[in-house]
């Protein structure tokens, strides 16, 4: 099983690809609403991409109150 550190890095890389950002431009503590300037609908689209990559299902409620990549990666890690 990948470590949380690896998972976090993969989440960041996928988010960078999804939102067409330069590699390395996101960090774990970034608030994705603020940093990416996205709305809740766009966040749900990112979730679908993450699910496909990790081959897991993330219910919408797992995102309640989550706004940074680190916490998001933790939620994913717990389902790997």
């Amino acid at each position, binding site marked *: 099983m990948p470590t949380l550190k690896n998972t976090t890095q993969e989440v960041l890389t996928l988010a960078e690809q999804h939102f067409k950002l330069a590699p390395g431009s996101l960090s774990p503590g970034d608030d994705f609403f603020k940093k990416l300037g996205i709305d809740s609908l766009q966040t749900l689209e990112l979730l*679908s991409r993450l699910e496909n990559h990790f081959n897991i*299902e993330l219910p919408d*409620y797992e995102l309640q109150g989550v706004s940074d990549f680190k916490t998001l990666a933790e939620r994913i890690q717990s389902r790997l």
Partner: protein
Amino acid sequence: MLDLAKYSSIGAALQDAVEKFASETCLIEADREREKDRLTYSEFKRRALPLARAMQDAGFSPADRASIVMTNQSKWLISAYAIFYSGGVLVPLDYKLTPAEHWQLLQHSGAKVLITEYPIWRQLSASPARDAITLQTIVVTDAPPNADLSGAQRWEEFHSNAKPAFVSRERKDVASIVYSSGTGGRPKGCMMTHENYLEQCVALTTLYPFWPGVRYLSILPTNHAIDFMVGFFGPFTCGASVVHLRTLRPEFVREAFTKYKITYVSLVPLVLKNLQKGLLVRFEELPAGKRKIFNALVTINKALTKSRPRLWLSRRLLKQVHAAFGGELQAIIVGGAFTEPQTLQFFYDLGIPVANGYGLTEAGTAITVNDLKPFRADTVGKPLPGMEVKIIDPASDGVGEVYVRSKTVMSGYLNDPELTAETIVDGWLRTGDLGQFDAQGHLHLSGRKKNMIVTEEGKNIYPEDIESAFESLPVKEFCVFAANYVWPQRSMLGEQLVLAIHLENQQTFTEELKKEITQRNNRLLNYKRIHGIVLFNEDFPRTASLKIKRNDLATLLAKLDRDHAILAL
């Protein structure tokens, strides 16, 4: 449909509905592509009554208050039925609030019972704000087998098979306490009576009827007045079906339209606009030849539906567009915020009527609705049957504050007689919104009462009026303010409008953008033009229904130094 004039309460009407439509499909619940549950009205009753009895056994008495904090799902409606059956008062709360806000409202409402979902309860129970409140009963759905319930009871175990007592209520009794958006320091708990709902339901279903076989897709949160009415009470009184999705991922929402052949859906403007964007991209991708044919068909459709919708014709002319929506969509109900006319027109031109209206929680969902006779994108429609609407203190242009009197108007704000007295004057609800009627009796809204300017020529200008000039501006979001509303001045002079802009991530304020704003601004009549731009680099605060919280945004902007913040155009 049930004859609602005969009923004195929501509970009594629902009780008859589940008998009358016993074999009709009542609820469908799906999670992604999987259908999880499908209930007839009779099965719905069999799930709700044991909950009602368990609540009663736990000490829930008539007029006691019970709160539901849940995402849209079958158990939301089952719980509401049990509460009304027991003569209780429903307190529906927005599940997206923070735990501290939830506890604040639970305390304010005096709720004895809380019915919620485990992921929400996990956060609520860990909140320090919990200590101040004692709830009699907490019931939690969706809890994993070994979850720490922290004093709550599991939904699956909270039932009793003995027959519960049905408790009747009077029309004037409070049926629910609905907190209107804006969880500021002063909670506004609108006390809605049984009569409010019964009357509103009759008025709305006259214009937009439900019948057995109708499938309503419930996306807006059910605590919201619109979904409560058109995604619960309305369809139930007519034997229609409600479809719930446990995920709101756009791909699964799209799939639900075709899979369940949706008849009605309610959306907020942001989502409607998003749908429009998606469709536009797909139209752009059509090969040139096909696009030409498509555009010609849209033109024909526009001509043929000018006086009224002709759904059967539109569905044949623009088959693929309608197929993407399931092919049986009657109308998209849009509400919760002001919708840009061009978005409304876009859908209508494709043969998809958009029921645009105007309402507020205090008035019992809707005050005016577009009756589609003919469709008008530029207004919020005519008053619903039973609504008296008047314009108070109209200015020289005819615009004044909108007052409403109707059996659907709330009885007041909970524990706030002062605010109630300010809001309901001699039986008339002061909406705080400004508008005027046109010759056809359609209401045009022009903004909020206080956020406005009066020009030196004596013209009243409303920011919301100006915003359409900046539609589709390439920025993340924008909002027009009266500068003196943001930074109050002790003077009536020097009033001007400013455009507050939140740029996209990594976007910079370029000369090109400034030029575009100037060009659009110059298309406005000179007295309507904005005088400056305020750059703001945070998300605009929005309500649960994604309406910009103008007051809150103004408060945030007010922290900026006015002279430095306003970049002159």
